[in-house]
């Protein structure tokens, strides 16, 4: 067990040697706080390998290693130390400082209530020394024992220890705040190792190495490498001066085909606008702004101005001042160049004449009505409706003044005036040439009138036909009430009255002249009624209302029935009693409808000034949507023989169009407007209310809000 001790000593020696410098430094600063120093010193000891020779747990015991450390050269203490170490190593290995009690570093008061104070190495209890001493004994001992003051109790063992003189001395010194070591002089003269004075002798007396006398090989190698690289021109000693001239022929080898990839999308900046006359310092007088123009210019937003300066006139060049916004304008140009998004805009460079479609000349599409021939005056209010006899000799018109007038077409003479006692909404002449009968809508009833015009045989036969009616045996429930006219009414020509529940809007005849349909201004399912005049029988064909019915029409040839609601036109098959087609008009509100005499084409006029031409064979959408009129369309009409149709509008015009329908199914109809007929004066925002073609001639009648009917031929 002797061996480790010198080893530990030698280690300590080296340790102390190393720490000479540090210890000296410490001496100056830490002389006052020894307690602190102890704690600082502690970690240093650990790595040193020497275990602290602690025999006592008392605070004073810590002084010992410190002593040994600082004053390693002190021989007497070293011996003492050696002794202590020996004692310790005798007992046990170095890593346990006091192994009599194994409880560890715990507060000992935990064992206060126990008879033992801990456990020894073998796990046996260490019993507290029997303390029979009470207060009195303590006092007696204090009084009697002269060493009582230097006796302390070891908490770990519970034994009393008497401190030696040295230990007491150490405690005193520490209490005074002095160094634990007696021999240590804190006020030794400082040796200035690194002074400002240049010493002639080295600090150490070590002879210089050989290598300090011979040139370094490594360095030589490095330098030679660099020199070689410089020689070879691999590296330049300093940054080479750029000796190429600032400007040279940059485009010496220009390749016109070298276009960068991005240049496909490149949009060159537009050039600045070149100045006009108004920018001159002495412009022609007309370019100077007048007072109002100047005011307008000043009130305009800067971005909206057409000129960004006010034209000015100076008498001579000498008087021209600097332009204040010159730098601004340059700057704005710069901003435009790098900030303004560019886009290639295709300029439509078309001759406006080319845009106009090439249509056949109207002259080649004759005949069509071109000029106003006759004016039928007599009505005092707006003329709502027109109808013409199948022979084309007579014209009937209904007006808001409550009368129906019969005119002779060729002379414009009013043949008859029938006061109706209400606004006449619709008139319809029976299309059957063998019957002379006119249906008139007045308020809630439809009146069948025999105008007694023309061939006497004809209208006599009509009367007979009506009188031949024999009432059926059993009364059938009808939506309307049929009533024969009274004697007074008969004298006026009225033959039959069909009383409806509500006001009647429109009446229209079937082509054969027996059936007619009426439209009631109602929202229910009984809007449309179909009547048979010979049997005096009516029926309501629809079970359900599908919107406000605007207009109804019979197909001229087949058993179809057209019903125009606000936005759609429905085509019903009367025989099969089913819906055949539903046409979308693309209009907001249909006002009128007409069927081509061949029955395959329909035109619809609407209040949003559109005219839709439907080809029933083609599609349910309009074949063409014509926006010829400026205002709402009131009426449309087809000619029975000529390929003509006309539309009347609130803007006071009637537009006659050529509408050729070909028999070849592959050929689409040709629509060409041929004439704009003006004549009617616009009153109360209403222009032409009804339009009608002559059955045989290319003539067109129009009735207007100004109370006139006009014939164009």
């Amino acid at each position, binding site marked *: 067990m002797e061996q480790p001790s010198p080893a530990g000593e030698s280690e300590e020696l080296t340790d102390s040697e190393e720490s000479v410098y540090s210890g000296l430094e410490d001496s100056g600063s830490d002389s006052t706080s020894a307690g602190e120093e102890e704690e600082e010193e502690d970690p240093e000891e650990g790595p040193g390998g020497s275990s602290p020779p602690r025999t006592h747990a008392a605070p004073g015991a810590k002084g010992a290693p410190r002593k040994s450390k600082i004053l390693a050269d002190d021989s007497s203490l070293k011996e003492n130390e050696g002794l202590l170490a020996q004692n310790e190593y005798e007992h046990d290995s170095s890593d346990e400082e006091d192994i009599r009690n194994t409880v560890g570093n715990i507060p000992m008061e935990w064992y206060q209530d126990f008879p033992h104070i801990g456990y020894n190495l073998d796990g046996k209890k260490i019993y507290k020394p029997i303390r029979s001493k009470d207060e009195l004994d303590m006092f007696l001992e204090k009084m009697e024992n002269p060493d009582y003051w230097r006796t302390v109790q070891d908490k770990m063992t519970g034994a009393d220890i008497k401190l030696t003189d040295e230990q007491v001395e150490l405690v005193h010194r520490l209490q005074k705040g002095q160094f634990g070591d007696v021999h240590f002089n804190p006020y030794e003269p400082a040796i200035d190792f690194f002074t400002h004075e240049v010493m002639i002798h080295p600090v150490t007396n070590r002879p210089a190495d050989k290598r300090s006398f011979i040139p370094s090989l490594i360095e030589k190698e490095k330098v030679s490498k660099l020199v070689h690289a410089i020689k070879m021109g691999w590296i330049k000693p300093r*940054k080479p001066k750029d000796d190429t001239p600032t*400007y040279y*022929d*940059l*485009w010496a080898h*220009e390749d*016109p085909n070298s*276009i*960068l*990839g*991005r240049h496909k*999308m490149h949009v060159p*900046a537009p*050039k*600045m606008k*070149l*100045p006009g*006359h108004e*920018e*001159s*310092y*002495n*412009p022609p*007088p*007309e370019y100077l702004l*007048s007072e109002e123009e100047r005011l307008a210019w000043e009130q305009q937003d800067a971005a909206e101005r057409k000129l960004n300066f006010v*034209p000015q006139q100076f*008498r*001579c*060049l*000498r008087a*021209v001042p*600097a332009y204040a*916004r010159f*730098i*601004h304008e*340059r*700057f704005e140009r*710069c901003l435009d*160049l*790098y*900030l*303004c*998004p*560019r*886009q290639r805009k295709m300029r*439509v460079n078309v001759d*406006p004449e080319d*845009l*106009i*479609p*090439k*249509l056949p000349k*109207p002259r080649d599409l004759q005949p069509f009505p071109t000029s106003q021939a006759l004016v039928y005056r007599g009505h005092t209010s707006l003329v709502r409706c027109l109808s013409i006899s199948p022979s084309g000799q007579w014209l009937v018109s209904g007006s808001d003044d409550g009368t129906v007038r019969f005119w002779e077409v060729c002379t414009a003479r009013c043949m008859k005036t029938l006061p109706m006692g209400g606004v006449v909404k619709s008139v319809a002449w029976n299309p059957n040439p063998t019957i002379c009968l006119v249906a008139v809508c007045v308020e809630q009833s439809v009146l069948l009138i025999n105008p007694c015009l023309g061939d006497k045989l004809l209208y006599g036969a009509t009367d007979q036909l009506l009188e031949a009616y024999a009432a059926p045996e059993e009364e059938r429930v009808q939506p309307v009430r049929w009533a024969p006219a009274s004697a007074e009414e008969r004298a006026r020509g009225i033959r039959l009255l069909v009383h409806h529940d509500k006001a009647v809007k429109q009446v229209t005849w079937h082509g054969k002249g027996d059936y007619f349909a009426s439209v009631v201004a109602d929202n229910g399912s009984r809007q449309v009624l179909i009547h048979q005049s010979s049997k005096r029988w009516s029926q309501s064909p629809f079970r359900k209302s599908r919107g406000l019915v605007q207009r109804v029409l019979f197909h001229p040839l087949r058993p179809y029935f057209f019903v125009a609601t606000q936005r759609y036109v429905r085509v019903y098959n009367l025989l099969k009693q089913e819906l055949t087609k539903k046409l979308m008009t693309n209009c907001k509100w249909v006002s009128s409808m007409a069927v081509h005499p061949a029955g395959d084409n329909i035109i619809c006029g609407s209040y949003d000034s559109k005219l839709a031409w439907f080809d029933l064979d083609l599609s349910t959408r309009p074949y063409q949507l014509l*926006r*010829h009129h400026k205002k709402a369309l009131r009426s449309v009409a087809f000619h029975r023989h000529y390929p003509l149709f006309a539309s009347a509008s609130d803007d006071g015009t009637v537009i006659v169009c050529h509408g050729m329908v070909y028999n070849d199914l592959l050929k689409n109809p040709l629509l*060409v*407007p041929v*004439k*704009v007929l003006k004549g009617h004066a616009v009153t109360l925002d209403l222009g032409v209310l009804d339009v009608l073609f002559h059955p045989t001639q290319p003539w067109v009648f129009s009735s207007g809000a100004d109370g006139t009917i006009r014939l164009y031929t």
Partner: protein
Amino acid sequence: MGGLEKKKYERGSATNYITRNRARKKLQLSLPDFRRLCILKGIYPHEPKHKKKVNKGSTAPRTFYLLKDIKFLLHEPIVNKFREYKVFVRKLRKAYGKGEWGTVDRLKDNKPTYKLDHIVKERYPTFVDALRDLDDALSMCFLFSTFPRTGKCHVQTIQLCRRLAVEFLNYVIASRSLRKVFLSIKGIYYQAEVLGQPITWITPYAFAHDHPTDVDYRVMATFTEFYTTLLGFVNFRLYHSLNLLYPPKIDGQADVELKPAEGKEYAMDSESYLEKLSALSASLARVVATTPEDEVEMDEFPVEGETAEQMDSRKKEQEALEKHKNLFEGLRFFLNREVPREPLAFVIRCFGGQVSWDKSLCIGATYDVSDPSITHQIVDRPRVQQQVVGRYYLQPQWVFDSVNAKLCLPVADYFPGMLLPPHLSPFVTEQEGDYIPPEKLKLLAMQRGENPDEESEEEEEEEEEEDDNNKEEEEEEEEEDESEKEEEVKLKKMEEQKTQSNKALPVKVTAGKLRVEDRQRLEQEQQSEEKRLAIMMMKKREKYLYKKIMFGKKRKVREANKLAAKRKAHDTAVKEEKKKSKKARRA
């Protein structure tokens, strides 16, 4: 069904564009650096065709760059230089802060610099491309060269701009390529034709600038940086195309003349050289001295398919151009000190005239006021105290107007103190239907070789003699707007017809004549109606376009009419005044 899910905005135009912020992040540049890069490389935002598609459904206003452009910026060597410069600045600031002056010097020695040569070459692959884009470069250089040497930007930049601008002016003089000049209220516009490319630039009037505060001079400086590089290379190439030395040297013979006689140094040599050059009074030295005989007649190669007429017209044009170039040949000008020297000297020298000024005004004066050979003296004062016989005293506008008119205008209108005729813009080429000021009409007539001056004078005299009624009629006749005239005639005719019909005197009216007129009118009406009907049948989109075009046309006509009416009112007012003054004189 299968197939990959197609995600929105992952193909098509959305992937072709990139917003500015994203571009900046991709390039890892600060906004100022990005701006600089965009300016130098000529990258600009694009307006996508479908903004919403590109903006991923959002309608927020954003600027978009082409992704290709940004990728193109990615491997630009200048970007690295920017970064190096940033580091340099940081180091320098640190060195300054520590007061390490040695380091500061060393750092400054190794200051990272960059050149823009490759960018110029890249942006303008051919020389003609560069010439096409020279307008802004020149205007900017001329503006910067007038800046004061303090504050706004580096003195070197200003000096460089001045040098390059002067070099360019000298080139224009040497090549005689100036075509048009215009004195505007903003500055002086010049247009030169270099290698067939018209180049227009504007110079401010020579006054101190009132520097605005809301202008970012850094942006302008970056532009100028690029423009100076471009202009330098262009100048080099232009000088070499004329066999001139670059950097320019004043012709040896002229150089001797320019030396101050007293032996006193005017200024430092380097400075005075630029000043001598900028005096624009001496011709430049050539690499190979040319003699007038050297100029070879251009051979003519008849182009296939070109008729003799076209050839003739081309020849004529060539001759006219030659004549225009030598407009002031043989004339000697003297500039008074109150007229702007540089523009006038430049313009006169561009057209072959000789020019001088007072010795004390500027360096480079070649002859004195008292020189008897002076033909024109440019004066901008109401009256001249001592007049020398044998020379015209003219206002400066005469020079500019003559250049624009391509002929020496009659001098009578330009004497000192006279009310000058309007100065018209040479850049306006009136199309049919545009308003043409009467002065321009006069000028055009003069160019055709007529002499409208005398006529108009005669007219005026006649007018004055005649009664008021006649005058009005004449004025009507004078009116330029042909269409209006026609309309009036038409109206008159119609009125006549109406009166005739109203009178209902069929005895006097010859039926045949009436019918003829009617037929014409009818035909016109019919045609117009046909047109109207056809317009009705146009498709919606075409109709919209048609209406827009027609609206533009109508507006143009309206504006022209307005100008004409204004002019008419002005003329009548002036005439009234004249008359009054005449009457007053008589009385």
